[in-house]
């Protein structure tokens, strides 16, 4: 019998931004539209290099971030897996159309490499100030998935996850990384195609005359017919009925809105991803995400060396919020520390979930510098 030789995986020494681009291509992204902005620009530059070289790959530099969002949604409606990446100011500009993508249930990945804000802020310094904006930035009540990554390999991994979730749940997915993670170089390993789960949106199973583009199929998620394949659907940002036509009938509006939320809620346990580190016997927990999670891990190791029972919960999914995991911590630990590079955007979620059970402490830094392991250690001890 012939031995199946294990092919060597390709290894790269790459920045977080490059890992995002690699992840997108692995996930089947064939359309990128963007506008340059530090510290996310490398993602765009790599896509500009790569996409014209792959079959059907389209790269567009648009006139601004709004246009980039519009182009990406348009491409998504034709059946493409599309991505756009930006940072703070550009993320602000994208907000209206993020809501549009939620409304028409267009699968799409939006990467925001967080830098210091508000306004032009600190273009080349890290921050985590866009967390609540990612959740609530666009107007109107809506569910959304917000993911994060704390290492370079995770950037690749989470980009693939972002595309898969976008396709599976027909929703825009926001990937929040920070300047530190985006610009750090580390080893990444490119998995083989067969090692990677890549999902694509559900196609209609019925002929055009029977197809209802916004009727629930897979537990709340409708199938999606690409433009140009005979289905001739109507897509609108107005609240619509199952046919996609505008409606203001309260029963239809209610059905639509509740399904929009239900389709994410139904898959809550697939969507919410966390990493637990040394938590089994922990009496003191740290909840962190992004580059701060790396510092926290270092601090946890140092605290453990000194005999303190400290553990770390790293949030890979920021929203929907990891309520069960955090609740468990709050019951188990006397103290929970939430270090973050903002004035307390995830800590407010932790406090909400905690509901008075544990003592929640915050460690905030807004000077454009990463929170160091020693700062976290000092807060713990």
């Amino acid at each position: 019998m012939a031995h199946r030789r294990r092919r060597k995986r390709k290894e790269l020494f790459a920045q977080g931004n490059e890992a995002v681009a690699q992840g997108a291509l692995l996930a089947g992204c064939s359309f990128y539209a963007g506008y340059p902005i530090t510290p996310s620009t490398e993602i765009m530059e790599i896509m500009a290099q790569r996409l014209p070289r792959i079959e059907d790959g389209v790269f567009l530099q648009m006139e601004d971030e709004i246009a980039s969002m519009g182009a990406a949604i348009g491409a998504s409606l034709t059946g493409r897996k599309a991505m756009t990446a930006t940072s703070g100011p550009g993320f602000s500009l994208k907000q209206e159309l993020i809501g549009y993508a939620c409304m028409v249930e267009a699968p799409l990945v939006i990467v925001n490499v967080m830098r210091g804000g508000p306004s032009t802020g600190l273009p080349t310094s890290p921050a985590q100030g866009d967390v609540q904006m990612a959740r609530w930035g666009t107007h109107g009540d809506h569910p959304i998935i917000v993911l994060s990554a704390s290492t370079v390999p995770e950037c690749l991994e989470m980009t693939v996850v972002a595309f898969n979730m976008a396709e599976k749940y027909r929703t825009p997915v926001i990937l929040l990384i920070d300047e530190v993670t985006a610009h750090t170089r580390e080893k990444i390993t490119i998995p083989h195609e067969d090692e990677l789960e890549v999902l694509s949106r559900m196609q209609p199973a019925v002929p055009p005359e029977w197809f209802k583009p916004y009727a629930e199929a897979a537990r709340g998620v409708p199938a999606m017919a690409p433009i140009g394949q005979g289905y001739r659907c109507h897509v609108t940002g107005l609240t619509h009925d199952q046919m996609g036509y505008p409606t203001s009938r309260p029963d239809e509006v209610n059905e639509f809105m509740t399904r929009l939320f239900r389709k994410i809620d139904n898959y809550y346990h697939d969507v919410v991803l966390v990493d637990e580190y040394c938590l089994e016997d922990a009496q003191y927990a740290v909840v962190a995400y992004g580059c701060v999670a790396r510092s926290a891990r270092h601090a946890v190791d140092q605290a453990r060396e000194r005999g303190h029972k400290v553990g770390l919960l790293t949030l890979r999914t920021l929203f929907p919020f990891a309520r069960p995991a955090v609740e468990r911590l709050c019951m188990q630990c006397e103290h929970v520390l939430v270090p973050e590079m903002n004035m307390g955007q995830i800590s407010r979620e932790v406090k909400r979930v905690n509901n008075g059970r544990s003592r929640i402490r915050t460690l905030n830094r807004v000077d454009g510098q990463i929170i160091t392991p020693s700062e976290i250690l000092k807060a713990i001890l």
Partner: protein
Amino acid sequence: MKELQKIERFEIRLSGTGGQGLITLGRVLGHSLALGHGYNVTQTQSYGPEARGGSSRADVVISSSAISFPKTENLDLLVALSQPACNAYYRFLKRGGVLLVDSELVQHAPTNQFVGLPFTKLAKDKIGNELTLNTIVLGAVTHLLAFAEPRIVRKSLEETLPPKILALNIKAFNLGLREAKRHLGEAPEIWQTAAENGAEEDMEGFED
């Protein structure tokens, strides 16, 4: 042949002015230690305003185990190719760390415990191309790092540099290696001396 040693956490800063190729140097060194040698490596660098105004910096952290904090905190090796860089970063060098300078460009080292080679002059006189400065430094750094294997670093150069400039850079790398061996002594001794001096030296009073 050098062994693949166990390293707890080793921090390097390569600093100087823009145009000396320090970012490339950091990338090639990181690439080699991560992919060639198999260490865990994180590499970061200066951006934006910091990267303009003439100064340039690349940091490399190396460890046998997973690196949690990706930036440098206490430098084991500081390479300073300009006087301002040397002044600015010397205070991040930990006790027992080694300072390597361009002996022509850094006239006033803030300590007398340092090693130096005239890198820029070597690039000009021996290679005939100032742009190879960073590769000469890479050779010298490879010699200084007991855990870096010249053969593997050379291979990384082949993997990362465009073929057109490869031959020249291999020459520069070998020159750096050779000069370091000749003038700086053997790696273990350099670190030994630094450790001993570090134990005695009073580091306070040095400000930039």
